[in-house]
């Protein structure tokens, strides 16, 4: 029962990600795509340090290592 709940919850989250991305790609949409959100976050800098880029790259690098190497 709890296992089904977890699977349903994660599936719902993935479907919501896909639905928002689909909505973002419609012509004239006010919703930015996930790529635009990431690009906006990656613009963040503290002085000369690209904190946003380092953070996003670091997260994505860790995610790949976690799922594909561990």
């Amino acid at each position, binding site marked *: 029962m*709890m*296992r089904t*709940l*977890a*699977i349903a*919850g*994660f599936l*719902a*989250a*993935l479907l*919501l*990600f896909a*639905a*928002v991305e689909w*909505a*973002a790609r419609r012509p004239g*949409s*006010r*919703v*930015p795509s*996930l*790529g*635009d*959100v*990431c*690009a*906006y976050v*990656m*613009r963040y800098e503290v002085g000369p340090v*690209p904190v946003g*880029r*380092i953070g*996003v*790259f*670091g997260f*994505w*690098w860790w*995610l*790949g*290592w*976690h*799922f*594909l*190497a*561990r």
Partner: protein
Amino acid sequence: MEQPPELTVDLPRVWDRPVVTVPVLACLSLVGGQLPSFSAQANLWTLGTGGALVWLGLGNRVPRRPAPRRLGRGAVWWVLPAAVFGVFEAATFVVSAGSEFPTFSRLADPLLADELVRSAAWFGWLAAFWGLVRR
């Protein structure tokens, strides 16, 4: 002789095209898909490919697409899927009930044991990473 900026055009580099990048990413993914979890090779391959992409992304070696200067209010919609995922990931992690109430990682593990699925996951990870490098 140096040209005035209005007369110069940034030509796309030969290698910076899908016809080149997709096969390269596919080859890297096929290799990664053969490497078993918890092996030194898998760790090195992940750290090597990811490190190379971070190196490319933090330098000015790859042309980038312009980033939006601001996000509209529609960006709030992204909170919804992130929150649903975060709630379930946090709940399954805190409860720590193993297979009874599994985390996302625990659910993905049996799927990623298959070499074809693992290679596809590798390709998705590398393609998204390449997309981030270009932003």
